[in-house]
């Protein structure tokens, strides 16, 4: 046992050394080529890179670098672009060459600008207004972007994970097997500590599918956001909006009479108060899912920005003290982000369950 650990530690040390020596080699090379950037340039680059990283993109690039010839090289693969512009236009995003060229599809020309596709002419002119917003018309973009692709992959992963887990139960006399042993306590936790106490014994079964799916979906996708794959799905407002609106729709669709009664005609308060409470309560039903949306979006976005800023400091400082300090800080924050990934999934599920609970709650005491 001890020997194994020693061997592993030694391997790790060698690995780190090789990375460090590689980095040193590279910086020497850069110096030799005279392409070393100034601190200000590096700062600007990091500053530009962070929001760019937070955006969705039309191709799946794991990383990019500038080759010795000064050319941007992207490692990754293109994704299909699906546009609705008086007819369907489908082509691969490789046509854009990462925004460097104009894509021609049918009779139309399109250009990528800051992650968005604009309609343009053969010359690729894009006009900007005073706030530096492009004024060109935008086609309806239903492309399979990086985020859509990730959602698909996560969906597939979840489907395989949980359908296999379900099969294992059937073949194993209702006992979990393999991965199921790890996942079952979480499933039971969601059932016994989130759904049951918040929704109630009578109705909780109806909501289990959604609660379980949303929990694992957010958790897995948050965790993927922490991998070096450069994926960040839950910091897209469209994604969190979609999840929140599903919670809202389920709450509204399954609400019982008591729920509406408590919104429009609050029992147990004087009549004038009922009129005052009506708009407040009604607004509350929208604020609840809205807070769900903003909470998840803001937490994950903030985590990514802070983590990347600290990592960016390594490149800005470029000395051993700043580098190692940033590394240490990034590691601690990374661990915190691991916690946040699970916590946000938990909170989203928990609050959804709470809203469902309020929708089906029966007030016997009135």
């Amino acid at each position: 046992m001890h020997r194994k650990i020693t061997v592993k530690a030694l391997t790790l040390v060698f690995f780190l050394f090789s990375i460090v020596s590689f980095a040193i080699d590279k910086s020497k090379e850069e110096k030799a080529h005279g392409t070393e950037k100034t601190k200000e340039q590096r700062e600007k680059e990091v500053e530009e890179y962070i929001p760019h990283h937070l955006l969705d993109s039309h191709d799946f690039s794991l990383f990019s670098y500038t080759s010795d010839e000064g050319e941007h090289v992207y490692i990754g693969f293109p994704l299909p672009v699906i546009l609705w512009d008086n007819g369907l236009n489908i082509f691969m995003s490789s046509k854009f060459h990462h925004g460097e060229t104009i894509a021609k599809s049918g009779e139309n020309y399109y250009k990528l600008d800051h992650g968005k596709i604009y309609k343009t002419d053969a010359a690729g002119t894009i006009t900007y207004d005073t706030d530096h917003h492009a004024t060109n018309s935008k086609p309806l973009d239903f492309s399979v972007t990086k985020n859509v692709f990730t959602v698909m992959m996560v969906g597939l992963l979840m489907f395989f994970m949980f359908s296999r887990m379900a099969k294992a139960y059937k073949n194993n006399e209702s006992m979990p097997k393999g991965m199921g042993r790890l996942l079952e306590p979480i499933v039971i936790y969601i059932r016994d500590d989130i759904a049951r106490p918040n929704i109630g014994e009578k109705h909780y079964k109806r909501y289990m599918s959604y609660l379980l799916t949303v929990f694992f979906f957010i958790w897995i996708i948050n965790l993927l956001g922490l991998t070096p794959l450069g994926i960040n799905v839950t910091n897209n407002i469209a994604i969190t909006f979609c999840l929140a609106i599903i919670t809202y729709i389920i709450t509204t669709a399954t609400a019982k009479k008591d729920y509406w009664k408590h919104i429009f005609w609050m029992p147990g308060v004087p009549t004038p108060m009922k009129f005052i409470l009506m708009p407040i309560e009604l607004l509350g039903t929208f604020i609840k899912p809205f807070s769900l949306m903003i909470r998840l979006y803001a937490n994950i976005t903030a985590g990514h920005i802070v983590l990347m800023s600290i990592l960016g400091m390594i490149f800005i400082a470029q000395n051993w003290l700043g580098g190692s300090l940033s590394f240490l800080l990034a590691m601690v924050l990374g661990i915190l982000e691991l916690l946040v990934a699970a916590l946000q999934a938990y909170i989203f599920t928990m609050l959804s369950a709470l809203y469902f609970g309020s929708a089906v709650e029966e007030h016997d005491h009135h």
Partner: protein
Amino acid sequence: MDKLIGDFSVGLFFWQLVLFVGLVLLLKKFAWKPILDSVNEREDGIKNALASAEDAKKEMQNLNASNEQLLKDARAERDALMKDAREIKDKMISDAKEEAKEVTSKLIENAQASIEQEKQAALAELKKQVADLSIGIAETVIKKELASKDDQLKLVEGILKEVKLS
């Protein structure tokens, strides 16, 4: 806020809605339902097994208690029977004794009574015989007196001898 709305991508929303709702429905059919059913089934099984074990234990206890009770009852019954038997025996003995005593005393009484009767009868007979004899003697004496003085004497002596003999 402006940035939030600006970042909102209708395409992404559309895909997420379709994919996520699809995922929920698929997982519901192929994963969550079988998983939760299995878990419930297992939990119910465990619960039932525990409950039946508890029942069996209780039954055992009841059985033990009733056994104990039965034994106790039997013992008490035996004791009662023994006591009754003893009582009956004692009573029988004492009754027998009493009866025997009564019977003997009655017998004795009867015997005494009959003895007394016999005695009275004998005495009466004796009296009668003495009277008869006396009368006979007197008769004979009177008859002889009339004949001769000597004969009279002889007769009396003869009678006296006879009496002595009897």
